[in-house]
């Protein structure tokens, strides 16, 4: 069989299984079982598949994923998130679109704890949506900013998707975690500018309201109590990575330990919190790692069948303009994102896109950040997206899916705008990591 027929068969099979609701990890495994049998060679092929499954996970660059998730879970379970949002709330004066701005502000803060967007969106949604409805915010100004802020989770370290992308693309995990900081912050700023413009030009969307202002002492104590310790842990974790004191894995473990100590100091640590944090971590970790274990062979089989090599050389021969290839790749990711979820997109494209990107001599750090952004678009792009569904779970019953979709659209365009900006100004990505090279 010719390589492109193999490729087409594998992809069609995979799509079919995924669309028919087969859990992604098992969809990859089934396709790999068939492909390993025919391409790697019958019994030996299946032996190789088992080895590949084990080998995929016994990989220490994946270790920061569970450790960072544990760090966030401990913070969440010890009840720090609502207090944090509450504190940010006290600081926001009477800015236009106050609650929407609050969503972005707390979204950015929450992102320093969460490694994935579902938790962030659900947390923000359940805390802020009722109040927004109370204050007669339009649905779009309520839902949109929260959806957008959910996407921040992956763009501000720690980021499970980011670690995975870096490790699969053979980019330094530490450098990548540092590289996403500026794009992530920029994303928050762009959201805020948009919200202010909307709120000023159409005040009825986000009616201003009188808000009882907290005293400066109260603000200060709350900040010291609820944000400072956490900020300290976050800065230590990132600082360790930035200064090269610890590897991302070690920094993550220290962060997790730090958050345990922090919640113990706040007298919020008990068996219940520990059990819930550990089982929450186990859940997300297994979810992610089983997919990785099932899909690593996918990439090896594609490569073994010659599909990857042939695709790469076709791309090299057909297009002489790398930027067009880049745009096509990102477009494909955004299109896949309308109906696939982030992890499966990543598993599908990385084995093919990274060889192309290195053949075209792209800066891989820059390329990975662009990919991650394009993948994040998918979490809020209709009709299917984890962010959209997490939102549906927390909004009031009379909110239709259509309303959620239309609220997401401006933020999708803001994200695409950010992608374009980073394509034009790569130093947004490369500047901070280059500061590591003093």
């Amino acid at each position, binding site marked *: 069989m010719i390589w492109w027929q193999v490729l087409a068969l594998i992809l069609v099979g995979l799509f079919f*299984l*995924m*669309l*028919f*609701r*087969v*859990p*992604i*990890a*098992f*969809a990859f*495994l*089934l396709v790999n*079982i068939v492909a390993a049998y025919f391409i790697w060679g019958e*019994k030996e092929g*299946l*032996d190789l*598949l*088992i*080895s590949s*499954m*084990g080998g995929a*996970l*016994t*990989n*220490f660059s*994946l*270790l920061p994923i*569970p*450790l960072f998730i*544990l760090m966030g879970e401990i913070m969440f379970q010890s009840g720090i998130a609502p207090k944090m949002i509450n504190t940010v709330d006290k600081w926001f004066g009477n800015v236009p679109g106050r609650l929407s701005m609050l969503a972005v502000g707390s979204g950015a803060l929450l992102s320093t704890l969460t490694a994935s967007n579902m938790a962030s969106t659900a947390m923000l949604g359940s805390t802020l949506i009722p109040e927004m409805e109370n204050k007669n915010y339009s649905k779009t100004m309520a839902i949109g900013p929260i959806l957008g802020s959910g996407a921040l989770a992956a763009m501000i370290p720690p980021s499970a998707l980011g670690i995975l992308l870096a490790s699969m693309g053979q980019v330094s995990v530490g450098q990548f975690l540092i590289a996403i900081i500026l794009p992530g912050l920029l994303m928050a700023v762009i959201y805020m500018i948009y919200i202010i413009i909307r709120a000023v030009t159409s005040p009825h969307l986000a009616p201003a309201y009188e808000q009882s202002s907290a005293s400066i002492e109260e603000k200060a104590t709350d900040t010291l109590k609820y944000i400072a310790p956490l900020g300290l842990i976050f800065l230590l974790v990132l600082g360790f990575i930035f200064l090269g*004191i*610890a590897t991302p*894995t*070690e920094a993550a*473990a*220290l962060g*997790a*330990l730090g958050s345990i100590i922090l919640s113990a100091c706040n007298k919020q640590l008990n068996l219940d919190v520990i*059990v819930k944090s*550990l*089982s929450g*971590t*186990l*859940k997300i*970790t*297994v*979810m992610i*790692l*089983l*997919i990785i*274990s099932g899909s690593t062979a996918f990439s090896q089989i594609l490569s073994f069948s010659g599909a990857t090599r042939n695709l790469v050389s076709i791309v090299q021969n057909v297009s002489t303009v790398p930027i067009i290839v880049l745009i096509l790749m990102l477009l494909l990711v955004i299109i896949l994102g309308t*109906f*696939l*979820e982030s*992890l*499966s997109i990543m598993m599908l494209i990385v084995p093919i896109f990274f060889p192309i990107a290195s053949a075209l001599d792209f800066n891989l750090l820059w390329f990975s950040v662009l990919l991650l952004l394009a993948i994040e678009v998918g979490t809020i792009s209709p*009709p*299917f997206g984890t962010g959209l*569904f997490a939102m549906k779970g927390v909004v009031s019953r009379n909110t239709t899916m259509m309303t959620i979709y239309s609220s997401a659209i401006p933020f999708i365009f803001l994200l695409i705008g950010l992608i374009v900006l980073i394509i034009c100004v790569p130093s947004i990505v490369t500047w901070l990591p280059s500061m590591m090279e003093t």
Partner: protein
Amino acid sequence: MSSIGKALNIVENIMAALGCILLLFITILVCVEVTSRYIFGYSFIWVNEVTEYSLLYITCLGGAWLLRQNGHITIDIVDFVPSELLHRIIRVFVPITGIIVSGIITWYGILTAIDLYERNVTSVTALATPQVYVYIAIPISFFIIMLEFIRILYGAIFLSINKGGGMH
């Protein structure tokens, strides 16, 4: 079914609990290692290898437990197709696929484990860990996953017959 079901629950819960303990263990282990390296200038070279194996073990220990909670990532496009027949087919199709996959992985996992044991394959590192201890996690895990899929299939058939009966 119910007593078998309960036994399955217990096995899955114990495995998940072990997974959680392992998670806590590697967190502490990595912290101890980094502290030791900086304060005492001594590093344990085996920590990396042990934590890597833990990653595989954690995944294998939590797989079936997560499946019972319906926690594995799926793409839910098909939920939007308003066809009860299609949904009923899918409710049966998915666990059958799962049984096939986990059955094959279990079988070849056992063969691989036996082969690793017979040839006494070890890791290429200083620890020289017998690889059978690492890879045995795969067939054990997928065997329990297969049992869980069988339960799901049983539920799907049982429920849809009940439903069909109710409609007449």
